[in-house]
């Protein structure tokens, strides 16, 4: 049986490749084992799978023809941007086509008067801001991997970043999409205005993790570059006080451009790694970035400084100049690789909670850390309540991995319990598919499946991701970093 199934697949594969050759040039079709290898995983390297074939189309008609072919033969299609995703959304399907959008890498148009850029999905996030800079404009969402990640992937995952506290997620910064449906039809959704008639398909597609359509063009909103940016660093002798300071800043009516928190373990690791000048004896630090006009920033610095002091900060520093500002951020952005130096393995989560509960959740996490005998480093987007706890463990010690997973599960349950969500910005993908069952009731999951079916009745687009089947709801999974083997270790993260 095993052999005949294998043969059957092999025949299908050669037929498929022949058919693809009528659409694409030879170097746009990869099927040899060694050519497929680079595509076997995305940023979540714990899951690996070779696809049947990888295609690298360059034009919209090619994508349409590929999708039609796959639909006709009922072959799964998984779209891929730069493969920097952290939840396995671009993990290939063993029986499917991996459709890379890497060659869709052109910025088609920058309209300065409309403040928009029309770009292809394979364009890197940072490349948009670089191209817009000469017009005094930029694209706001900035996932830490922005140097490498593609805008198409950002739309598929609805990515955030440090500055989404003030400027919103990807969905708030795009206006139009061109997508290819599973029938191979090209449609344009959204509008260059406030709102388009009919249902908000743009929002539905954003964050749908490649399960509803293939994105082939994106119109993003550009913002004027703020006149001045300034960052404050505050040290605390107590994590709970730092958590309270976050709520106090927001309640005072200030929305910083970024509001990040690191705890002692993370501070020490980052300091040892990049020498950012952090106070290493502090229990927690907050980094608060303010942007706007010169006067506005000056006024906000005074207010925030006072709130931080009133909240019990032991020290508040303002970056003296742009160099020091970049140094403050360097420690934060390098925190993940830095923590990776402390322990053979770590396990990262992306739970998000209403800000007010930060003190309670941080306290409970510290108690759990003691109970499980596993250290936790916390580095996260405090202003959004978006936690990235890192549990340090050693996979070679028997039982430690299991304990880590149990601990991680407790943390995510805690997030949902206080009114939060299991993922703030990394997406569900394959990684958190089981935890979807904690957050959603069967009825809600059924609704998601029905929407999927409205777009893709045969379930060919990225099957098995993001929304669990009802009988799957059972266990927990997460991102594992083994022996410091962080995928794309050169990238700044989170």
């Amino acid at each position: 049986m095993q052999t005949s199934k294998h043969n059957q697949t092999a025949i299908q594969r050669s037929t498929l490749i022949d058919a693809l050759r009528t659409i694409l040039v030879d170097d746009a079709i990869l099927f040899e084992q060694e050519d497929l290898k680079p595509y076997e995983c995305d940023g979540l390297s714990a899951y690996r799978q070779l696809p049947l074939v990888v295609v690298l189309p360059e034009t919209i008609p090619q994508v349409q023809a590929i999708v039609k072919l796959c639909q006709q033969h009922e072959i799964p299609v998984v779209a891929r941007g730069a493969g920097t995703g952290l939840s396995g959304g671009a993990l290939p399907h063993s029986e499917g086509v991996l459709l890379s959008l890497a060659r869709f890498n052109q910025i088609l148009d920058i309209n300065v008067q409309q403040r928009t850029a029309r770009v292809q999905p394979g364009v890197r996030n940072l490349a948009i801001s670089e191209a817009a800079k000469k017009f005094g404009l930029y694209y706001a969402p900035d996932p830490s991997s922005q140097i490498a990640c593609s805008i198409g992937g950002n739309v598929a995952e609805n990515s955030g970043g440090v500055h989404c506290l003030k400027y919103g997620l990807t969905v708030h910064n795009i206006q139009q999409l061109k997508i290819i449906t599973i029938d191979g039809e090209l449609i344009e959704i959204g509008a260059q205005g406030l709102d388009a008639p009919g249902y908000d398909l743009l929002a539905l597609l954003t964050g749908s993790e490649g399960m509803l359509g293939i994105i082939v063009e994106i119109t993003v909103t550009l913002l004027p570059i703020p006149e001045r940016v300034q960052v404050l660093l505050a040290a605390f002798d107590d994590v709970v006080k730092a958590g309270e300071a976050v709520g106090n800043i927001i309640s005072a009516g200030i929305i910083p451009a970024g509001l990040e928190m690191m705890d002692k373990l993370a501070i020490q690791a980052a300091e040892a790694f990049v020498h950012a000048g952090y106070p290493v004896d502090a229990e927690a630090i907050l980094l608060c970035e303010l942007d706007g006009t010169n006067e506005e920033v000056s006024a906000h610095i005074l207010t925030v400084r006072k709130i931080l002091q009133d909240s019990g900060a032991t020290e508040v520093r303002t970056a003296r100049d742009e160099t020091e500002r970049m140094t403050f951020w360097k420690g934060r952005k390098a925190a993940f690789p830095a923590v990776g130096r402390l322990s053979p393995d770590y396990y990262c989560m992306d739970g998000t909670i209403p800000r007010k509960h930060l003190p309670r959740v941080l306290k409970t996490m510290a108690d759990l850390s003691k109970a499980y005998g596993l250290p936790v480093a916390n580095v996260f987007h405090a202003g959004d309540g978006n936690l990235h706890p890192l549990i340090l463990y050693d996979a070679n010690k028997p039982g430690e991995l299991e304990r880590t997973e149990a601990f991680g599960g407790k943390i995510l349950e805690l997030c949902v319990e206080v009114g939060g969500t299991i993922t703030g910005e990394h997406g569900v993908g394959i990684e958190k598919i089981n935890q979807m069952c904690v957050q959603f009731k069967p009825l809600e999951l059924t609704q998601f499946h029905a929407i999927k079916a409205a777009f893709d009745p045969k379930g060919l687009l990225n099957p098995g991701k993001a929304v669990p089947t009802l009988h799957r709801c059972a266990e927990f999974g997460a991102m594992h970093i083994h022996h410091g083997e962080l995928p794309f270790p050169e990238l700044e993260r989170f």
Partner: protein
Amino acid sequence: MNTDFLQALGKFLSNEQLLSKPDECWAYGYDNSRRHGQPGVVVFPSSHAQVLQIVQLCNQYKVPIVPRGRGTGTVGAAVAIENGLVLSTERMNRIIRTDTANRYMIVEPGVLNQTVQDQAADHGFFWPPDPSSAAFCTIGGNLAYNAAGPRAVKYGTPRENVLGLRAITGDGKEIKTGVLTTKGVVGYDLTRLLIGSEGSLAIITEATLKLTPLPEAKRTIQIIYADIESATQAVASIMQQSVVPCALEFIDGAAINMVREYSSVDLPEQAGAMLMVEVDGQEASLNSATASIEKAAQQSGLLSFQVAASQQAVNALWETRKALSPALRNVAPKKLNEDVVVPITNIPRLIHGLEELSSRYGIPIVNFGHAGNGNIHVNLLFDPDNEAQAANAHTCLDEMFTLVLALDGTLSGEHGVGLEKQNYIGRELDPVAMGLMRNIKLVFDPNNILNPDKSFPG
């Protein structure tokens, strides 16, 4: 009306929650589109649980439901369906919770927009969407239409200002969408899908509104230009500099003439277009913000740039804008009011195109609106008693939509589709996208019970 159905409703609704006499129901049949349908029954549920029971019962008896806030909508989405059920949310008007540290407020759909603003202001916050009818319209209605208002240019529409919803789908299932946090990427974005769906997918029973801190200070500026080109060039320049205004309103020459004729507001003779700009933020930042706007406003046709120095001066500057609506009502009580959107750089072409239509069809057209978003309220001032004008009005409207679409625009910026624009949206949306929308409708409402036969062409 089926008596079994009415009896079944009566089992869980009190007498005060159920109207079935035609004269009592009549008042719940129309909205601000001035269309009317006679409801068979009007219900006033007071809880999520009662809405659930009503929707389930309507599925069982196949009775269509029209959800209704306060009927201030202008395109007919709340107009009753003959012999259908109208579900009024006016008794679901509780503010459930205000949470300032997490910056949200949980409300029932019947709460008035103004009540939310007042309550939030007590804590130093506001909820950005502010349609002109804020004093009378409900949050549920605002969400159904994705109704925005002037502040959207800086703060976005309801879609950007809602964190999550609780709702009953058309087939009578309870769903909860979204999160209490500003981030969250789990599952499809059903929150934004339900917002703007005009009551055709689900009935919202609870909304978590994202609150924004009230700015410390605000400054109001009136800028007058000799011509449309200078004014719209200024709009584009203002939108490109780094101070995002919290209001950027545009009034064209025809509207200025109207104001001159019907009010005592004094405006320069040569005025061909006017902008009203507001900037908000820290008091300390407003001088430089104003300077930045002034720099962007320097166009060849600039006639005057006036910053209000006091609250009286602010009121005086807004007087022109506010005098507009009553003036229009005096001139043409049955005017057609459309709210199209074009990319801001196409505003001059839109206005010139409308001038041409106006002279060709002999119908005065005046335009004003939220220029920062390219959202223009086009008013066709026709007299229904004038046969020639009445005959021309709809052809003229038709040509206007063609013009808007040719300028890469959209047919409705904030008023919605409802009954009024139902037959036009097929021109804007492509058939594949519309097919997907119909599929989505079926997912939520397989029996086609919620606001059937609206919003999409038949």
